């Protein structure tokens, strides 16, 4: 086979191998192995007075403890198990008005909080 054709095939094979490898690792940022442990805590509806919230877990911890505080006073609490890569919606029936209402969640060493200043 002529040399230029071998060079072309060589370049093509190397490029193919390189790109297959890059494709294989391109979604690592969604892979917990390449992430520090973290989870996201968010209100289901950020605009309304609803206190329903969600936890999305990207850590190896699966035990989550949550507390609902109204002006720093605990109103209710609960425990929930969430697997790696899973999301759990938690409904809150308690109504709080005229107060800063905070949801705190702890799992392992990480503690997160979200809050709403709910007008009367």
């Amino acid at each position, binding site marked *: 086979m002529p040399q230029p054709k071998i060079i072309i095939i*060589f370049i093509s094979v190397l*490029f193919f191998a*390189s790109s297959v*490898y890059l494709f294989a690792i391109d979604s690592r*940022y969604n892979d917990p192995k390449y992430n*520090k442990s973290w989870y*996201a805590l968010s209100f289901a509806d*950020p605009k309304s007075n609803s206190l329903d919230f969600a936890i999305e877990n990207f850590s190896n911890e699966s035990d989550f403890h949550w507390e609902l505080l109204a002006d720093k006073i605990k109103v209710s609490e609960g425990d929930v198990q969430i697997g790696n890569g899973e999301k759990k919606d938690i409904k809150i029936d308690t109504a709080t008005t005229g107060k800063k209402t905070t949801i705190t969640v702890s799992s392992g060493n*990480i503690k997160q909080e979200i809050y709403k*200043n709910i007008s009367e």
Partner: protein
Amino acid sequence: MLEIIANQILFYIVLVFVLFIPGYSLLLAIFGKSKTLSALERFIISFGLSIISVDFINFSLSGLHIPITRLATLISIMLFILICLIIYKFRCHPELDSGSKKVDSGSRSGMTDEKLFNFSKNQFVLILLLLFLTIFIKTAYLTDTVFPTATDMGHHMYWTQWMIDNHQLPTYEGMPDFIIGEHVIFGAIGLASGASVFSAFPVIILLLINLLGILTVFILTLRIFKQKTIAILTLLFLGVLYAVSSPQVKFVGGGVIGNLIGNFLMPLSFYFYYRAFSAIGGSAYGGELQEDEPFELSNSRIFLALAIFSTFGLFYTHHLTSFIFLFIWVMIVLILSLTNFKNLGEIFRKLRKIIFSPQALSVFFVGLFFFFFVFTPNYIKTSAVNTAVGAPSKGTRVGLTIANLRSSIGEARLALGFLGIMILAFGFKKRNFGYTILAAWAVMIFIMSTAPHLLFVNLPSDRIGNYLSYPIAILSAYSLYFVFRPKSELEKNGSFIPNNFIKFGLAIILTFVLVDGLSDSALSFKNKTDLSPVAEAFNASNYLAKSTTTSDIILKDHNYITSDSWIKTFFMRGYTYPLSRGYFKRYEDPTKPREMCTLNMISSPDNAAGKDCFAETRTDFIMINPQFDSAQFTKLKNFNQVYSTSGINIYYKNN
């Protein structure tokens, strides 16, 4: 798993269909199977011509108001390929075929094309080794940068996604900083393959373009010097050494699309111009012009047509490269005129025959028609040209020092490059148009980047300086070859330096060059990156995209949020959506007063200016990094913290 494999196969089929076959078919239509181009040249050039052909196909669809859907993309490219193949099938190529075995015009030693691309066993192994190292180092670097984090890539992929979603070419909301050629191939591949802009596909395409740019320089060097060793050394200086630094794989990972395509299309254009005008020097470049020399007029005209086609492709892709390209051409004309002063009449007579030909003129006028009547790049419509010309307006535009150049190009490469330009000047072959191109390429970029005021250039000097590494790599290879060329050639030229001394000198220089050139590749093997900031930014963006409507105004921070330029692609509500607090220094730029609201609303939301900005812009969501910016919001009662991770907080303004 099967779906992933199927998607991968589809991507590669689309890659070949969009980026290789159109150009290859075009070359078949033009040259048939003649040996005017070697197989390697045909392979490399096909990619460049495909990029430009796909650009023009998309402009045609846009001009005809045909929605650019997946089907339209596939059919139009297929139609183009079919037309080329029909032309190839029914057109005779007697003129070109007969010329295929002729002595290559411009060859001093009478070397045929086949011999030019026929390497010795050692050379061949060395080429394969250099290619392997080039791709290996670049891939190793990309292992940690392939993720969607780069700011430039984020901006470009927004427009690619816009093209995919809206089935038309973007008009960039009037912004001159984006040019259509930067996005068409990504849009076409994204449309046809369904690959996500968040995947590795944009980086892989850029890696391919970067490699092709290096290979184009390889074939250009081989054609100019007719010395395989110089071409192989160029592969070393451009591909393996300094493989990471700008404008190499750092630009690939960083998504500096225009510059990378520019550094492919500019050498490609020079290659075509060289082959078009090599005949003006006659077959014996160093000698006087002879009336009866073989004059490959037909080939020259075709190569000029391809050169013009490539030039339009360049102008449709990147304004900075085009701007530099024009300046280099001024220098080419200047050097050509000065070095061939006595023979200018003869040269112009030959040039006229090449330029005023149906092939060249038809491509030129069709290109002009497209440029001004079918799809005009934004930088032509706006004042981009005016802002690029004038006295330097910022400290970053007053020119680079030699120390700056040394860190940008590499100490060893710069030293050898300087030596190369001196050797080139000393033994300048005035009839070798390649020498003129190379000298003009290096000298003009050197002047533009170190003394821009002399040319009234008002552009960031470091951005221009990045372009210097390409001609300097060729000159480094040339100087290394010239000083340490084989003993037989030295003796032929009357050298009296002992052979052992030459070998010792070569070993020392090569050690210096390899250590200096490979040191930046150490970056390729850095530790595993923590990717959680990217994942957190994208998770937060996804939350906001689902929880908000177009009536909500979001402000995010560019300073402390990773991958923030990609956030707008989650919304697709306009290029400037969400609003962004830029780098702090930009708000203090005395040459360009900025709006201050994006700064005030995050930095001081409770003071009068901040409150006015919230009222004026109706911003109701703020996305920040809590490690830097949470305190000012936590104390305010009119902000709810609605989303939280360790790296991102989102606040909602509740009244």
